């Protein structure tokens, strides 16, 4: 019997994603971002989070989804993975749910156009809700991006 985990649920477009709550430091409303030149286009810049400078990533850009205008619902989720503090810009984030690890399935090859390596698994919650669990370490892995850009270039 696997234990329950708490998961922060957020949205990108119509998809719902989940991040384990202990990896999330805080969720902030959109705030002024200082652009950092000479970095990847999906790195929107840095913010001042209570005196700490934190880089902010547009998750849509990171996953190669078309970027969207920021709205009242737009949130910055500050995560802390491997002692790296990073903010994710997401369309909205307003739910915390309990999830049993048993119902997380291994990810299918491709879900919603996102490379499977970014995913930890997919959980079916309710009748027609699919929750995509993110593999944060991979999302923040820059080595892989270099390779990607190299291929594109």
């Amino acid at each position, binding site marked *: 019997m696997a234990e329950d985990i708490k998961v922060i649920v957020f949205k990108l477009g119509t998809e719902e994603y989940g991040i384990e709550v202990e990896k999330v430091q805080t969720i902030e409303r959109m705030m002024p971002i200082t652009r*950092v*030149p*000479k970095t990847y286009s999906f790195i929107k*810049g840095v913010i*001042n989070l209570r005196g700490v*400078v934190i880089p902010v990533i547009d998750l849509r850009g990171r996953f190669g989804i078309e970027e969207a205008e920021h709205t009242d619902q737009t949130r910055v989720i500050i995560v802390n993975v491997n002692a*790296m503090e990073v903010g994710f810009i997401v369309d909205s984030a307003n739910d915390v749910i309990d999830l049993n690890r048993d119902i997380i399935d291994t990810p299918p090859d491709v879900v919603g156009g996102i490379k499977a390596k970014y995913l930890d698994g997919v959980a079916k919650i309710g009748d027609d809700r699919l929750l995509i669990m993110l593999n944060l370490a991979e999302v923040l892995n820059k080595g892989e991006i270099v390779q990607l850009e190299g291929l594109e270039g």
Partner: protein
Amino acid sequence: MDMNQYLSMFIDESNDHLQSLNESMMGLEANPEDLSIVQVIFRSAHTLKGMAATMGFEDLASLTHQMENVLDLVRNNKLRMQDFIFDTLFKSLDALESMVENITGGGDGKADVFAIVAALQAIVRGEIPAAGGAAAEVTAAKPGNTTDAQVYLDEFQYSVLEQSLQEGHQVLYVDVAIRKDCQLKAVRAYMVFDLLERSGEVVKSFPSVQDIEQEKFDYGFSLYYITQKDASEIQKMILNLSEIDQVTAVALDQESLRQMGQESIAATAEAPAPAPAQEAAPQASNASPAAPVQKEENGKAAPARTGGAPTPSRTIRVDIERLDVLMNLFSELLIDRVRLEQLASEVQNGDLTETVEHMGRVSGDLQNIVMKLRMVPVDTVFNRFPRMIRDLAKSLDKKVDLIITGADTELDRTVIDEIGDPLVHLLRNAVDHGIESIADRVAAGKPETGTVHLRAFHSGNHVFIEIEEDGVGIYPKKVLKSAVKKGAITQEQANSMSDDEAYQLLFAPGFSTAEVISDVSGRGVGLDVVKAKISSLGGNVTIYSTPGKGTNFSVQLPLTLSIIAAMLVRLGSEKYAIPLSSIVETGIVKQSQIRTIHGNKMLEFRGSHIPLVSLSKIFSIPDYDESTEEETEIVVVRKGERLVALAVQDFIGQNEIVIKNLGKYLPEVQGISGATILGDGQVALIIDPNAFIK
């Protein structure tokens, strides 16, 4: 339970105890009769042992235990402190230090301390060799006078020797001195043993074979040897080996053996009784020229050295990360304060304005305190120097007084962490090359003992650390001459150089390895590294020297690394900070003054052409491009001798900024060295001018 929590406490406290042990030992060395210091040392060692045992660091605990045994005899007046005991105890401290270091680095604190433990045990047993090489000479000078021998036999060895004599073998007492310039003395010693083993048997040697193999002996050793050959024959055989200075082989008969045996057994039995060798030791220590004394002129910082328990510390340890969090929270508060002040001036309410003003004053005071929390007295770096100078002087056969002033001067923790190595270098330089040998000093009419002053003091926004000695000084002409010889400068340049410029040559990289310089004044070994390190801290180092009288290295350091003065500039909607330390000047140029050379934009600046770098292009700034403007503001920045002009839109002004890094996810961004938070809460990036100068 989280052992790590205790571990860091253990490491901190062990380091404290080791430091106080080192200091007390130095004090005791200057004042060997003062048993109250021994008490202090004993207590520290005892605490350390207990801590180590609790944490499961057995090697550490057992070494301190052996030290305690020695100290216990001393404090109960059963053993007199002398050079060999000091050396062994200092060696033990070094071993303890490296063990704690190992633990700090995540190791298990295990170390091979067998030799030291053996030496400590030997001291407790009363087996004390007279001061090393000197002893060998003494015995060598009086061959046959075997009562002086320091090799004590136990009963078993004694009976072996006695029996051999009865069976008609020769028993020899052999004393070997290896030449002082011998490079691999352990190998020579091995060859002697090898030779002897071929025609007989070595029963007992001092130092032990193990110590000899590890080069843990001075240039002589003694042994008991059973053979069929004559003493003179053995003597000749050993002398045939190269690099052997002197050999004395004395044949023992029943009578002399019994005499020595009785002495040995007596000495072993009542260990603390002063053996003959011990009486010789104080003389040896008097003869030894190295006698560094540590003095502390600053009354406040002077620790109570003579007796009594140290006053209980009124400080607590705080993790530096917590201080960082405090700093961050505080800068939040500052931003809100600025916002409140704005609102208050809009609202025009007297009470509100008054409250906000009061809050401004309080937060100003708070800011001072928060900044001060990161400040550490420079003493934490200085405290290891007395011991270092002692060892250095001893190994160089010089007499050196180290006088420390201003050890309570405070510097930011980050600077403190970095400044140790350059200071070590400069101090070594001062003792090694600055202070002359005793003979030279006497010849120059100076006191035998050289003085090295280590001073720290505040001045304005800087801290100065000075290292001044009364040694040989630097002769600018000789520096220039060798610089010309090395091809570093031309003869014409040399002719026009001032003394100060000549001294600066010592910091040039090319000079670092030049023997020429070492011959002249001994300066220049790695000074370029010292200079580079200090520059990287935003500091500066200068030399003043009076030839024949001494040299002063003056190191200027910023109070803190986390706050710098910077020029804020605007490019379109974006703001950037440029460190003031690398800005040469600012100005305005007309489009017509910009030339294109080989496709690169260049600008005439003080008679030469320097590149003009478009920040807006490099940083792809969305809403500004200087090429559309008739006049462009430029900031000329410098890296070493090279200059570059950066084109910007507006100067906002000069500001003190708190440097923050961009976080682990963005460790390196080209052209950006960090970020800072402006008064309005916005983040501004700090430009790294070095990135634009290739």
